[in-house]
């Protein structure tokens, strides 16, 4: 089983991120706007370079003294808030793009076949030949997940995966993501500022405020003894 371990410090102007994280399943990072949640994900991805610390995945150092594995070789799939589907490619084309990045890359016909199989597995085969602009929020999220899984990741990062959905779709998609993540058994980090997300995912929480971890634990533990006003309101 792979385990994601990170301890990173990064100064960006007057803001400083200081985060320690260890997980082999799903963990949520919660916090108010500007707490550094998204920066934390970009640091794990290797887009933002930490000033100090380390990132390890399944025992392999991704960032450490003298080690800085480039983003494309980290094996960490990233799903941003708006899902960032490539707008010029169909749903299937988006998944095929990820398959085409594998080494060795499957042949074109094989990529097409595998993309359809993945879309089918996530229940969006009917969207295969449509462009992202014509998909609903829930469909986009599933296509984005199919694309992320196509790269055969060893860990997954989600930035506010439910924020772009309307309230009706949110509940269903939450449960759906939880089931998929449980099935995959990969380390996953889900950034959110919504308690209901954490609750639905059944994940432990790391609360970031002003770049620092103010509390960590299960939702029940946080609710029992909130360390800050924000945590109290979050559990509220």
């Amino acid at each position, binding site marked *: 089983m792979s385990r994601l371990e990170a301890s990173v410090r990064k100064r960006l102007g007057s803001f400083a991120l200081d985060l320690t994280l260890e997980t082999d399943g799903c963990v949520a990072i919660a916090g108010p706007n500007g707490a550094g949640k998204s920066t934390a994900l*970009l640091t794990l*991805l290797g*887009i933002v370079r930490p000033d100090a610390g380390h990132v390890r995945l399944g025992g392999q150092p991704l960032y450490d003294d003298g080690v800085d594995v*480039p*983003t*494309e*070789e*980290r094996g*960490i*799939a*990233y*799903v*941003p808030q*708006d899902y*960032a589907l*490539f*707008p*010029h490619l169909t749903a299937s084309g988006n998944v095929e*793009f*990820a398959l085409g*990045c*594998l*080494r060795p890359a499957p042949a074109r016909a094989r990529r097409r076949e595998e993309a359809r199989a993945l879309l089918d597995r996530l229940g969006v085969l009917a969207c295969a030949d449509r462009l992202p602009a014509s998909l609903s929020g829930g469909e986009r999220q599933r296509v984005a997940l199919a*694309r*992320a899984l*196509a*790269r055969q990741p060893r860990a997954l*990062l989600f930035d506010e995966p439910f924020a772009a959905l309307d309230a009706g779709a949110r509940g269903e998609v939450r449960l759906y993501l939880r089931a998929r993540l449980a099935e995959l058994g990969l380390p996953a980090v889900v950034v959110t500022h919504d308690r209901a997300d954490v609750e639905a995912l059944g994940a432990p929480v790391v609360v970031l405020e002003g770049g620092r971890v103010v509390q960590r634990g299960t939702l029940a533990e946080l609710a029992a003894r909130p360390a800050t006003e924000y945590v109290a309101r979050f559990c509220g």
Partner: protein
Amino acid sequence: MKRRWFALATGVLAAALVALLALPTLALFVTASPAAILAGFHHPIAAPALLLSLGTTLVSLAVVVTLGTPLAWWLAQARGRAARAVETLVALPVVIPPAVAGIALLLAFGRRGLLGPLLERLGWAISFTTTAVVLAQVFVSAPFYVQGATAAFRALDGNLFVVARSLGASPARAFFRVAMPLARPGLVAGAAMAWARALGEFGATLMFAGNLQGRTQTLPLAIYTALESDLHAAQALSVLLVAVAFALLLVLRARQGGAR
């Protein structure tokens, strides 16, 4: 009453400018019979200038796109003060008068210019050659492409590249498979503007490359030369340039309309 007066005044002023802009172009077409204009194309100056303009602008466009695309990509990504300085520098040729550009090119690449001794040792004379024509065109037209391409790259969602990288795409793959296709309308528009500017280049070419038929005499220079001997030939070449410019404008407008 007051409102009507205002509407009338704006209408008249606006119409005056439209007339001022349209009248000279109209004059190009109506002051000579189509037969006379067609005959103008048979002037011995026309064919060589046409071929030279076509050849040099295609080469200069290739140079501008090849060198300008990486520069625009860098400018769109970079945040530092250096990038802003480079961006200003690149825009400079747009506001420099063409005659000044000609002198500047002469002082840089001419026989007695900055790089003159070096070029002479390499046995490469540039001024008053076709190479000088291309160089002048690159100098004046590159900013139009670089500015258009930079804006097109900047308009793209940065998350697309983060995602592409996280999916295992190298920076090069992310550029060619994601950035280039998405920025293409902006790149094409920038290239069209640059090409139009290169095609019309006159001042810098005249000073830096001279006016030698078949070697440096492009269409605008041929128009200038023909004006002294055969007005119809000058007019014919002018009509051709206007037609090309107008067609370009229509195509760009149609593309923009389609993208919306």
